[in-house]
């Protein structure tokens, strides 16, 4: 087969803006999310959660709950199988001890955070189940909670876990304390680097624990049938992760579990693993009936999510000409109640967009009495960037150098050595900064008191990894596209567009679905900006193979060698007789007489560490009376390689930017000294509303990614990283004060202004 123009610049589909296939169901209320799924004969499960942040469980008496009419089963920690210590990959979250995953789903000996699950019931209605869990009597021995990284890392801190293996989540720790593992990275000679510096700045920063804030709760329906076969219906980022983690936790064969993914009502990293599934499975096993479980909003905020709070110390040295000479970075990040937070991601990404010859980054993964952290869109990166990009800004101002020029002078470019030790894959970092500097926003006057403009620039990495895809050609020329990549924001469309581009057909001829865990090969979850990029690569390869097989069919019909078939834009031509031509549709109609249906399935591993870059510009006005920060104008720049569907790319950039704005200015989980969460509602966990924001302008840059046939880079995460730093720099330029604590809530801004 000869293939022409499939991967040329002249693309018919990639880069256009068709309406998404799931859109109609979503605007009419027909889309099926987890809570919209019902089975007959169903029971409803609810969970009893600890009121203590740290306590030993002395006893649990469930007799009164079991006696309540309408209650069918109770499950507590001792119903869970005892499993061996086993480190299992959790994708972008590193490794996890499966005992910890089990204990997080249901506490056994100790509760480790406010909201930790320790008992559950299944009943005829959710209301009866709620009544029943209130009848469960638990005796606790309260223990001292450790609520922040500094107290948990103190030399005299009590270990939260009796069996803690430092560093097990990512790499063996050489140095550690009672509750913290260490990950270190560096290069050059730090002492020499600071000796060469003409100016040195050292600053400390803190950030608070925050939540992903997806609007849909955690909801799951599980049926444990009489043959021991488990079926799960849930909205998840990864049906295979739910399956595999459940198999480990319940100590049953993977083949006994089938996970059927439903629409996901927001996740952002927080729905990549299990919480309720093993509990519902055990309740279903006990009752012989399907069990549906859902968390109330306060349970979501108390027991799921969070993205870590942190303590960051940063020292940077610079020569008078603006050359960075050294950086010493201390990143202490909460892991939550179990080891394995995201700190290794900011360790590798927080400085590497600049060439700094002498550097040391010490990351600490610190166990505290808060829920086990989960990834949140570019996990851990916004917190570190809040620190690093403020110091970069301060250095530029100290030297009187334009902030873009200062960054340009130290800029990492294609081929430069990145901190993890490999060269930077192709990306046009200079184009990014040049575009910012030449942009109208950067040059527009910003007059008036208490107003300032801020810039931040960030680099992040695209996760690749394993994806599967299958394409089946129907005899009428329509095409089924199946992947295992849950669609959180339009990826059924962006994958269909890539398939349509290769196949040379109209994208509306393709029907895309997200398959269950039995119907397609293993795939990693929708995380790490990977689906349109990594799953896209497999989709393109599968589509190419479909064309090859279609060409072979044409060759049979024309009685020629398959090499004599030219394929271009959905048209098959006999090279030796160009009068013989067939469209994709015509040829599909002859599949059955040329050898039967065509179905191609493949599983591929895409490369990781594809660089992603973004820069944000923001204008603010700070009210000196109230400390409120008003955003006047916002522009996000991002290099996405190739925007498959520009509307969706803009949507990713805008949505991520606003999550970044939320964490920068308002969002914080408030814990009291006892470790109790004080704002477990969406009134008090204050996410941005439409009224808090202006339009978010976007500038899409496209420097192609050679690892993808159309040059695509993942675009989901990048734009959450720069907002906090950009806002901090803007607040400084508006008021002269630097905020070293996130969120930069009004009371903190006021306090900083008063100290001035």
């Amino acid at each position, binding site marked *: 087969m000869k293939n022409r123009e499939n991967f040329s610049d002249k693309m018919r589909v990639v880069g256009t803006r068709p309406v998404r296939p799931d859109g109609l169901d*979503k605007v009419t209320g027909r889309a099926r999310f987890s809570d919209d799924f019902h089975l007959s004969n169903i029971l409803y499960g609810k969970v009893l959660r600890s009121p203590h942040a740290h306590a030993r469980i002395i006893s649990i008496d469930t007799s009164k709950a079991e006696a309540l009419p309408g209650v069918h089963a109770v499950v507590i920690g001792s119903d869970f199988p005892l499993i061996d210590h086993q480190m299992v990959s959790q994708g972008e979250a590193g490794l996890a001890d499966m005992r910890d995953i089990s204990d997080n789903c249901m506490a056994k000996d100790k509760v480790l955070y406010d909201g930790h699950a320790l008992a559950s019931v299944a009943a005829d209605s959710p*209301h009866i189940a709620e009544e029943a869990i209130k009848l469960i009597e638990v005796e606790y021995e309260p223990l001292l909670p450790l609520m922040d990284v500094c107290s948990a890392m103190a030399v005299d801190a009590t270990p939260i876990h009796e069996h803690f293996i430092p560093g097990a989540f990512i790499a063996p720790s050489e140095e550690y304390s009672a509750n913290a593992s260490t990950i270190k990275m560096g290069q050059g000679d730090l002492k020499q680097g600071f000796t060469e510096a003409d100016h040195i700045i050292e600053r400390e920063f803190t950030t608070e624990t925050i939540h992903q804030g997806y609007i849909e709760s955690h909801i799951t329906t599980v049926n444990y049938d009489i043959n021991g076969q488990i079926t799960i219906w849930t909205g998840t980022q990864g049906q295979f992760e739910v399956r595999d983690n459940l198999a480990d936790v319940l100590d049953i064969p993977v083949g006994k579990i089938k996970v059927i993914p439903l629409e996901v009502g927001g996740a952002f990293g927080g729905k990549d693993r299990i919480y309720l599934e093993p509990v519902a499975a055990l309740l279903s096993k006990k009752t012989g009936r399907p069990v549906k479980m859902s968390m109330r909003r306060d349970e979501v905020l108390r027991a799921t999510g969070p993205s870590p709070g942190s303590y960051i110390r940063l020292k940077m040295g610079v020569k008078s000409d603006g050359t960075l000479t050294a950086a010493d970075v201390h990143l202490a990040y909460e892991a939550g109640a179990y080891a394995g937070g995201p700190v290794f991601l900011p360790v590798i990404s927080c400085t590497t967009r600049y060439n700094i010859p002498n550097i040391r980054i010490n990351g600490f993964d610190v166990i505290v009495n808060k829920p086990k952290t989960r990834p949140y869109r570019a996990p851990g990166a916004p917190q570190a960037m809040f620190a690093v990009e403020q110091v970069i800004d301060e250095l530029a101002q100290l030297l009187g150098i334009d902030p873009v020029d200062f960054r340009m002078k130290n800029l990492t470019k294609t081929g430069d050595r990145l901190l993890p030790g490999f060269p930077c894959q192709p990306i046009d970092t200079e184009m990014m900064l040049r575009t910012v500097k030449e942009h109208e926003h950067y040059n527009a006057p910003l007059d008036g008191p208490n107003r300032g403009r801020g810039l931040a620039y960030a680099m992040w990495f695209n996760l690749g990894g394993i994806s599967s895809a299958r394409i089946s050609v129907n005899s009428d020329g329509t095409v089924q596209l199946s992947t295992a990549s849950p669609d959180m924001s339009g990826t059924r469309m962006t994958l269909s567009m890539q398939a349509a581009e290769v196949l040379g057909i109209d994208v509306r001829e393709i029907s895309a679905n997200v398959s269950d865990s039995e119907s397609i090969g293993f795939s990693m979850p929708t995380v790490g900006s990977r689906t349109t990029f990594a799953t896209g690569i497999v989709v393109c390869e599968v589509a190419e193979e479909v064309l090859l097989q279609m060409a072979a069919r044409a060759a049979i019909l024309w009685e020629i060698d398959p090499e004599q078939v030219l394929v271009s834009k959905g048209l098959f031509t006999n090279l030796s007789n160009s009068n013989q031509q067939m469209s994709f549709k015509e040829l599909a109609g002859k599949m059955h007489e040329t050898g039967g249906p065509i179905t191609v399935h493949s599983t591929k591993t895409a490369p990781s560490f594809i660089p992603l870059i973004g820069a944000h510009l923001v204008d603010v006005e700070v009210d000196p009376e109230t400390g409120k920060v008003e955003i006047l104008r916002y522009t996000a720049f991002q290099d996405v390689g190739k925007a498959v569907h520009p509307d969706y790319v*803009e949507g990713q950039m*805008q949505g991520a930017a606003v999550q970044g704005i939320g964490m920068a200015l308002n969002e914080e989980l408030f814990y009291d000294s006892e470790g109790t969460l004080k704002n477990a509602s969406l009134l008090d966990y204050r996410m941005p509303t439409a*009224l808090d924001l202006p339009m978010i302008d976007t500038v899409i840059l496209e420097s192609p990614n050679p690892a993808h046939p159309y040059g695509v880079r993942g675009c989901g995460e990048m734009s959450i990283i720069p907002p906090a730093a950009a806002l901090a720099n803007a607040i400084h330029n508006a008021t002269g004060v630097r905020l070293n604590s996130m969120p930069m809530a009004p009371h903190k801004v006021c306090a900083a202004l008063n100290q001035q």
Partner: protein
Amino acid sequence: MSTKTHVATTINGEVTEFLCEPRQSLLEVLRDVLFLTGSKEGCNDGNCGACSVIVDGVLINSCCMLGVEAQNSSVFTVESLASEGDLHPLQKAFLEETGLQCGICTPGFLMSAKALLEKHPKPDEQQIRYWLASNLCRCTGYDKIVRSVMKAADVVAEDKA
């Protein structure tokens, strides 16, 4: 002993009778009794707006009203927006302007926007942002939602002209 109350009401223009427990919210009744699952539960305490419906012309959070309170009222849910296969201009605009990503908040936004356009047929951006401030969206950053409502308002105004 009966634990349920009989309620007669009008839902999406159709006379509807149902039995519900006094403690069940209107949202529960819509979703679990009448199987109108377009209205979503995001918080169950009136803070996210995913369950927004219009009762007797007033935009409300259906999680904060009891099912029994719907007696003799007229309730409109997202399921009422499209008529005989024709999408409402708001639905069309949300599709065309990509005013949705995950889609869980979309029904609530559509109902809030509908209530807005009934009261202010030509809203400016600030009015739209004000009326949508009781609906949380975590995916879009609101930009394309606001644009969708602007576009729909123009279409509705043109249709009336």
